[in-house]
């Protein structure tokens, strides 16, 4: 996996795909998988990054960018493989719909809220969430999540069209 994690603020014209996850925790790795596949199929116009999900890191990656698409695993207890999509600004995300995990974690949700507070959100931020089935250490990505990953991958190109 190659994650070119630059700290310099993204130029205003920059377009990014950020996959978030832990490749050793089953379906938690789906964001990284989608990002990796997108890189393989892309023409290089869109920068692809992989991240662990630490919030301040996300903030430094997307600060000032024009369009950022984040792909992450979701755990809502719903049907595995279900795809969620939120667009900011616009959609009600995350405060009202995504309960804060805790003040112990500073993750994606917190990064979005803090970026909004500090005025450093990308001009357009799209979040894809894929409902996971198993997050066991060392597990493979489940079949239904794989299917969802292919669908999200197919939809990503359209986001940058």
């Amino acid at each position, binding site marked *: 996996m190659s994650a070119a*994690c630059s*700290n310099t603020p993204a130029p205003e014209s920059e377009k990014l795909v950020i996959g978030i996850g832990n490749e050793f*925790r089953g379906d938690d790795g789906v964001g990284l998988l989608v990002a990796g596949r997108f890189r393989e199929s892309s023409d290089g116009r869109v920068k692809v990054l992989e991240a662990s999900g630490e919030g301040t890191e996300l903030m430094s990656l997307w600060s000032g960018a024009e369009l950022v698409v984040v792909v992450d695993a979701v*755990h809502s207890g719903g049907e595995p493989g279900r795809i969620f999509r939120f667009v900011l600004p616009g959609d009600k995300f995350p405060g009202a719909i995504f*309960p804060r*995990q805790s003040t112990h974690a500073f993750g994606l*949700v917190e990064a979005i809220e803090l970026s909004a507070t500090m005025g450093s959100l990308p001009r357009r931020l799209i979040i894809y969430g894929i409902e996971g089935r198993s997050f066991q250490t060392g597990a493979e990505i489940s079949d239904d999540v794989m299917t969802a990953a292919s669908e999200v991958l197919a939809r990503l190109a359209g986001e940058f069209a």
Partner: protein
Amino acid sequence: MKNKMIKVDYLARVEGEGALFVKIKNNEVADVKLRIFEPPRFFEAFLRGRKYSEAPDITARICGICPVAYQMSSVHAMENAFGVKINGQLRNLRRLLYCGEWIESHALHIYMLHAPDFLGYEDAIQMARDHPEAVKKALELKKIGNELVTLIGGREIHPINVRVGGFYRTPAKSELGAINERLKWALEAACDTVKLVATFPFPEFEQDYEFVALRHSDEYPFNEGRLVSNKGLNIGINEYERNFAEEHVEHSNSLHSVRIGHGNYFTGPLARYSLNFDMLTPLCQQLSKEAGLGTTCHNPFKSIVVRAIETVYACQEALRIIGQYEAPEQPFVPVEAKAGTGYGCTEAPRGILYHRYRVDDQGVIKDAKIVPPTSQNQKTIEQDLRRYVTMYMDQPKDKLTWQCEQAIRNYDPCISCATHFMKLEIERE
């Protein structure tokens, strides 16, 4: 209130993965259960059959916040097994890399996780509305730590430039010029941070801990030293498993570490500081004094001050190393694999991280053991909670719950080793 229950699903990623449970019955603490950390058993198994050279990159994946610590403990363990010693600029570069990790990890915890507790905010987002400049400073400070890790480690997340024997590539002297200027700013910001956090209100909670940390004859510890405590421990790293054991705990999948014959212990900034105060720079010692700290600190709530002092130290040490840096002739010393067992222990931002590997004559890993700092502190955190709740039982439940969370946060428990995903609930009408 005679009976109450405090329940915090504060790591509500997977049900039952992380939680705090406190039960008060007849005005006594009846039960404290803490589940916060899953030790890296999977990785110990995953490493078996892999080449020794893969250990730094594989173990770096255990933690998104402190990959450098895992890399450092693994390379030191392998070098110990092969009888290789790293000196001079290569050794300094390892310390420089560790400085970057301490700066970013401490800045994140001080400002984004711990400071809101003391200032009465629910989280950093609320804090940012009233104190945007402090949050901007925090983000910048953390970023400079990231930049240092990227520069020496090859990249910021899961650095790839570390190898057994040294590095794949070492920077030219000229490459360190830009970060040098950034670090001068970081040093000032870190000094301001000490002054800020020293003004926070701290509960009275001095405890008689056994502190365990590395101690080195010449320096504040990062990579090397003997393991010492304030209660008589003084051992080489290879004696770790003869002195410490992991006990199975019923309510948790994880293991609790104890010092054999002594019980729970405390590792991390407070322990390092209290066992190595004399190794801090004059500036750090002066700032500690101004912040009201003695040469030891037994109040875990003051760990935020100690983290700030250590951030100052990391900035100063980084500047010192860069100031006398000359690119080494070779980026690494040659390593020849041979059968044996190697031990490594380094000071991760959260405390001592122990690695032990047994390798065969082809350099294939036959057995691995990894004990992270958070799992070593778990029993002490439970003890703190039990004592804290006993002392402050009369407070309203909301306040007590919040302070219990704060008491756990004193240890900066590492959670990034587990899954990170969003917990999602959707309300339908």
